[in-house]
């Protein structure tokens, strides 16, 4: 039975192709000169370069963290190339017509047509290919509403005051090893600004693609939602199937001003490596948001890819009555390792947080939930509810839960529930007795297990997430 289930899960990695694009790629290696060259490639102002160099000095003195429940050979940071961009992007194409068709084809193959007429209405896309943003769609329509949605490299040029004010304000440079590295070498990502009392008229999304060999991708995203505004942002990612490991070290910062709401969803499908653990992306990500008074930040993530995932999207609930949410599905199989969870830092009064984590482990994989709930002395009447469920498939995988609670306010309430279950033979038999093949049976059972998280995803992403787990949501009652 386990064998059947493993087979069912061992789907092909459909995004594993390589695009034939001529790129300009830095030689591997990292020193101050490389950082100067990245900065020069992006025509950055002096202050940005200084910021990067400072980060590089901080990073150089830091140690790689080892507390996560993951194992991988030491990363040689000198063997990675820190910049790669399609040559065709050098002339900064002004419109889609000027973009290399091969690049457009890449995204089309990934199911993300960038031609606006063909796109899903209501979603604007920033497409990041290795170290550069290729296209950002629907920008005009968005700017009519006063919304800024552009590559961060462009924001540095055009909105330096906003960038200076907020970059590093939520995740300080010295926050952690990978964040510091990202500050030094980040290349592209998205910048979002939603003005006061504005509801962003479309879903915003960024699609990250690693294509070039031996390069790292260092994505940097900054989202600012001014007072009373609202935005829903989606992020997707894929990479070719390669035998070597590649590094993706991202930093995402969210700022939700008073009464603002940010919904941030991720479907992470980086190449996971093969069944024996060869190849795959190391996904070391720092994501954090700050909530001011009455603000709300909701993180939803579906993590199915990467050979190693190290990721804790977090909320600093600074303002009174602010709300933080974390909904997560992490599926590991083969030899994948995931150490993921969240931190909810309650500073303000009556702040509330909800954590729903669903870990699915199959094959010889390892899946850990690591979460911190901290109630600071000022968090009068704050509440947290945490639910961690693990689903085991087979008996060679591991599931672990590391919940940390620090409560320094006696009026704060922290609740934690945890369950571990298996896909049982009885469930499989029931499904098959009703005519379903084992593949469909597994995906349906797994889908059911994830339901509470999937329902938090925007419609289009729920479908993509479902497909990722080979789940058809067809026929479900709304």
């Amino acid at each position, binding site marked *: 039975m386990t064998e059947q289930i493993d087979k069912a899960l061992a789907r092909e990695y459909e995004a594993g192709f390589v695009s034939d694009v001529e790129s300009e790629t830095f030689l591997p290696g990292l020193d101050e000169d490389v950082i100067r060259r990245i900065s020069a490639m992006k025509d950055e102002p002096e202050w940005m370069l200084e910021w990067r160099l400072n980060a590089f000095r901080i990073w150089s003195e830091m140690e790689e963290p080892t507390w996560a429940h993951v194992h991988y050979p030491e990363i040689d940071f000198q063997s990675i190339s820190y910049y790669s961009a399609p040559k065709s992007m050098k002339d900064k194409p002004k419109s889609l017509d000027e973009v290399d068709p091969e690049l457009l084809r890449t995204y089309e193959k990934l199911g993300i047509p960038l031609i606006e007429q063909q796109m899903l209405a209501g979603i604007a896309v920033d497409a990041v290919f290795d170290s550069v943003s290729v296209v950002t769609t629907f920008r005009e329509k968005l700017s009519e509403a006063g919304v800024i949605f552009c590559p961060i490299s462009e924001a540095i040029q055009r909105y330096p005051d906003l960038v200076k004010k907020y970059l590093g304000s939520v995740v300080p440079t010295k926050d952690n090893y990978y964040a510091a590295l990202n500050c030094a070498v980040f290349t592209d990502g998205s910048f979002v600004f939603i003005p006061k009392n504005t509801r962003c008229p479309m879903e915003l999304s960024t699609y990250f693609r690693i294509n070039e060999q031996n390069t790292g991708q260092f994505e940097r995203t900054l989202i600012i939602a001014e007072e009373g505004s609202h935005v829903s942002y989606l992020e997707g990612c894929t990479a070719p199937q390669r035998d070597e490991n590649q590094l993706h070290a991202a930093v995402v910062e969210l700022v939700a001003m008073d009464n603002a709401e940010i919904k941030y969803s991720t479907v992470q499908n980086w190449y996971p490596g093969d069944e024996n653990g060869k190849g795959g992306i190391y996904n070391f990500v720092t994501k954090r948001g700050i909530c001011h008074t009455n603000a709300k930040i909701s993180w939803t993530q579906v993590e199915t890819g990467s050979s190693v995932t190290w990721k804790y999207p977090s909320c600093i609930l600074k303002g009174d009555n602010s709300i933080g949410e974390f909904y997560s599905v992490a599926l590991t199989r083969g030899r994948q390792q995931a150490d993921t969870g969240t931190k909810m830092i309650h500073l303000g009064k009556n702040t509330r947080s909800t954590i729903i984590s669903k870990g699915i482990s199959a094959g010889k994989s390892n899946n850990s939930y690591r979460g911190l709930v901290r109630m600071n002395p000022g968090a009068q009447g704050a509440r947290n509810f945490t639910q961690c469920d693990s689903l085991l498939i087979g008996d060679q995988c591991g599931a672990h839960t590391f919940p940390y609670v620090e409560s320094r306010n006696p009026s704060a309430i922290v609740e934690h529930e945890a369950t571990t279950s298996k896909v049982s033979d009885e*469930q499989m*038999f029931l499904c098959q*007795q*009703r*005519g379903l*093949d084992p593949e469909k049976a597994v995906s349906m059972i797994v889908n059911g297990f994830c339901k*509470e998280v999937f329902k938090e995803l925007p419609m289009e992403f729920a479908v993509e997430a479902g497909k990722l787990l080979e789940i058809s949501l067809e026929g479900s009652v709304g």
Partner: protein
Amino acid sequence: MSNTKSLLTIKNLHASVEEKNIIKGLSLDIKPGEVHAIMGPNGAGKSTMGYVLSGRDGYSVESGSVTLDGEDLLEMETEERARAGLFLAFQYPVEIPGVSNLEFLKASVDAQRLARGEEAITSANFLKEAKAACKQVNLPIAFLKRGVNEGFSGGEKKRNELMQMLLLKPKLCILDETDSGLDIDAMQVVAAGVNSQRTEDRSFIVVTHYQRLLDYIKPDFVHVLSDGKIVKSGDASLAQELEAQGYAWLQSEPTEDELEG
């Protein structure tokens, strides 16, 4: 014996689970449209028979043969047997949390129709049918949205099994103690559900301990299964005898000859 072709033919079946022989020479012949009741003491192998026929993992056939509609059933995968029209209503239905009943049923019906080369049913039509089935087994419509058997009471689970049968429209329905643990009203619902599905070409194997169910579902034959084989067969009146006398008197009796006689 009539000349119509058999729907199910079991010949001298021997089967085991965990290296333990449970089915020890079971033979049974069922014609289209017939209802056969199977009674017998606990541990006789009634549930095992259902599992072996439906091809559950871990249940292995040592010898004998089974055909459904002339096809070798034992050659087929579990899901192929289901698609060929075999349905098992479980004695202990399992929960599938988070998967809605409707989603589960639609997927099942879709898979079966696809395998039979039939056109897919539209979601709207299916919903209509599902609501009707719900009503027929006396479950609130809201049960379609709930997780499969998730938090259902014992009786609700049994009625849910019946609802699945109504929607899947199998050729051969095996009901494994679907009436156990039900009050008289719920039992009548089960009986009515079965009776409503009786057609010329649909057959039933009804496993039960209680003659009262058989008062409502009038079986064509009643068999007693004991220690892995059928030790006595008769018409509906056999059930009454069993109700009055229990099974003990059968266990010492000669069997095969009597059955043929």
